[in-house]
């Protein structure tokens, strides 16, 4: 039953080394990303528009390519598609590096390092799982590391989808480093077998859905936070003010419109998955405890998170709530997710209390 063979112990040890290596490389990636911001600049166009807000015209998106341009044959008047300009806003920035090639190299280095760290991190989780022959998310240490992996994975995925989101690196890597730091120090437990309550294939389904949702919600929340900052800055610039102390940061971010759209898409993409995670949890609860919903604190907070995200989605389509107010709801929704994890596991006793934390 208890397979604590030498090979398994070696694997568990390897998992820990990989985790420490991953943290070291994430730290380097984080420093490189910070350096990109430090050595980058706001970019010529953005600087000009910030000094002369009235003189610039901007669009939320890049113009879409003229259609049908290469078809052989007749014709010809091709007009670019029209895009309406709602408010005079400074143009979207070019990212952390601005137009500095030196900073751009730093940013690229940061991405490469993040990728390397991601591989080490994934290796650590896989070896941890192999060492105990079960899904490696049975306690808070394992859940935290998997959650951080999902967040980095989501960041890299958005990056791979042609989107230049390198400006996300600093906040994402910071929270990943904090999560992993907390995991290896306070939440750490040696690899071990699961309590009988977790002996179920639903562990794969329910928990992995929750982990992936968490990772993407996290990115969504970071983008939402940046949207609020950028939006305030745009409003300030539109009124002819400088835009505060962090103006250099906001100026380099994409336009508020595209940040808002990105955060919405991330949240919308993963909301059905979170719904599925909650439903899968209910199905599991029915199999384990004989009722699909019992208002256990974890269930209650999963419900609260779900309702908060539902409110966010509705707010996006409600007049008077669009924009910053909806964004605030998005942040509240994410904070309920975070509380559901740390708060409920640590401070509230319930049926989900198997964090593996040493008892006080």
């Amino acid at each position, binding site marked *: 039953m208890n397979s604590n063979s030498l090979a398994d112990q070696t694997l568990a040890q390897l998992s820990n080394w990989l985790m420490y290596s991953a943290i070291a490389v994430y730290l380097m990636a984080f420093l490189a990303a910070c350096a990109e911001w430090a050595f980058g600049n706001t970019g010529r166009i953005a600087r000009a528009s910030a000094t002369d807000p009235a003189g610039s015209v901007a669009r939320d998106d890049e113009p879409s390519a003229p259609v049908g341009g290469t078809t052989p044959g*007749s014709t010809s008047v091709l007009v670019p598609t029209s895009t309406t300009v709602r408010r005079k806003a400074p143009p979207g920035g070019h990212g952390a590096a601005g137009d500095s090639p030196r900073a751009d190299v730093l940013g690229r280095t940061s991405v490469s390092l993040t990728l390397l760290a991601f591989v080490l991190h994934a290796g650590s989780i896989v070896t941890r799982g192999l060492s105990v022959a079960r899904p490696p998310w049975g306690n808070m240490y394992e859940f935290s590391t998997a959650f951080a992996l999902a967040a980095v994975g989501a960041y890299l995925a958005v990056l791979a989808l042609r989107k230049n989101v390198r400006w996300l690196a600093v906040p994402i890597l910071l929270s990943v480093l904090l999560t992993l730091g907390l995991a290896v120090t306070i939440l750490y437990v040696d690899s*071990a077998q699961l309590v009988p309550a977790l*002996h179920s294939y639903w562990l794969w389904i329910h928990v992995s859905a929750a982990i992936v949702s968490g990772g993407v919600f996290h990115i969504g929340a970071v983008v939402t936070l940046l949207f609020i900052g950028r939006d305030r800055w745009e409003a300030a610039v539109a009124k002819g003010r400088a835009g505060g102390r962090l103006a250099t940061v906001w100026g380099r971010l994409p336009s508020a419109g595209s940040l808002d759209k990105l955060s919405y898409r991330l949240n919308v993409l993963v909301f059905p998955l979170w719904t599925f995670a909650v439903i899968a949890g209910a199905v599991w609860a029915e*199999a384990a405890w004989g009722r699909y919903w019992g208002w256990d604190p974890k269930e209650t907070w999963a419900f609260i998170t779900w*309702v908060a995200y539902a409110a966010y989605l509705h707010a996006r389509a409600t007049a008077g709530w669009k924009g910053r107010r909806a964004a605030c709801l998005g942040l509240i929704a994410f904070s309920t997710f975070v509380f559901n994890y740390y708060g409920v596991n640590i401070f509230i*006793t319930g049926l989900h209390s198997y964090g593996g934390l040493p008892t006080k």
Partner: protein
Amino acid sequence: MRTALVLLLLLALAAVPGSLVPQQERQPAQAADFRRNNPDLSNVLDTLGVFNVFATPWFAAVYLLLFVSLAGCIVPRCGQYLRALRAHPPTAPRVLSRLPEHTYWIAPAADADDALRAAVDVLRGRRFRVAAGPGGDGWVAAEKGYLREAGNLVFHLALFGMLVALAIGNLFGTTGQKLILQGDGFTNTSTQYDDFTPGTLATGDDLEPFSFRLKSFHAAYQPTGPQRGTASAFEARISYTAAEGATPRDARVRVNEPLEVNGTKVFLVSHGYAPVVTVRDGKGDVAWKGPVAFLPQDNNLRSVGVVKAPDAVDAKGRPDQLGFTGLFLPTVQLDANGWVSTFPAPDDPVLVLTAYHGDLGMNSGIPQNVYQLDTERATQFRNADGTPYAKALRPGDRMTLPDGAGSLSFDGIRQWAGFQVARDPSNGTALWSSVAMGAGLCASLFVRRRRVWVRVRPHTGTDTSSGIEIEVAGLERGSSDRLGEEVGEIAAELRVRTLAACHDTSNSRTQERP
């Protein structure tokens, strides 16, 4: 929508106290602790119903209002949707170039009707629903993505399904708990339960007529390491008969693996130890003999329990009830905090008891909790120095009470398992509602509803005498980058088609470039 939004936020907020304050039904022990520690606060909370949030009228009010507002929104929308399904896509706007996605070109020597026909083909080929305007200043209107609204409606209707499931579960479901000693049996009738909670409209008379016997219980624990003592497996081996007179069958019930008998499920929810004791009274007769279930208090199964001998007599033969209360420690250790258990398996079991005699209230007719001793009118046995008389026993040991009042011998240990037996007729409704919810949600979030118009009109250029102008435009609620691509693709396809058509009809003419 604004009302619904506010109610959604209110619902989330209303659920919060239910997770922070221990709930009476779910965690009675913690709730009692909480009440003891915060008596004043508890009175306030009690009036507000915070110890049972999810059954309070105000919580129900929030979600019922939400459902009312939802119905007010969904019912008209269903009607609108059905009308939209029957209706044609709307007429092309007058000025297509104002739409967010728009392109146009001039096809010389192409026929307007052919172009319109080609447009209908292209759009139908892309699975659009198409309507064509009258000739002349011809246009084609097309729409796609009706599933978006359908999904949205299905999702919201499925929420009503959930509400119905909740109601069915509360009205007709039954749950009960039963603690069974190794070797003992259980028949599924309401009187046999330790604790039976039928739904509001469930009687408990029509329970599934099965019975089972707990043959043995097995538990395995981590023997070493930081998680020493954490259980790694529980298994109850039972023999059950599905109905009266049916042949008994063997089954294993584990956590996550309930036994199911015709829709009623038997879950393994707890386990513990039952010390087997023999109590002799003052005359030396056996006053009580058998296993007594002790209830676990922590992960290492430090358990508390009582032994009662209601028929005991004193040395002179007068009734003198005997009662024992104390701890059972599977692996004993005596440290600064008193008696503790360091491991849940019975490696070094010890029973620590203190004893009472007198009137234990067991003949009063008032039902008693079998796990508690009513010591109000009883006297505790004391040592010569006045300290309470207590003794730690290992299996085989015997404690002799002072003044020849009797004795108790610790004969051995048996295990018990706690089962929850539940029947919830709403499981199916809840499952299918949630499946519909998931599917509807995906459709409503990921299907894009968009309209495309094609307008063809004679080109009135300066140099060419014949030719038509073809416009393609698209509209989507909530902008998307994909609409631009789609309009582009449709335009490109249409252009190839009109070009081919014009080659067929006029082979001799050469193409001109304006």
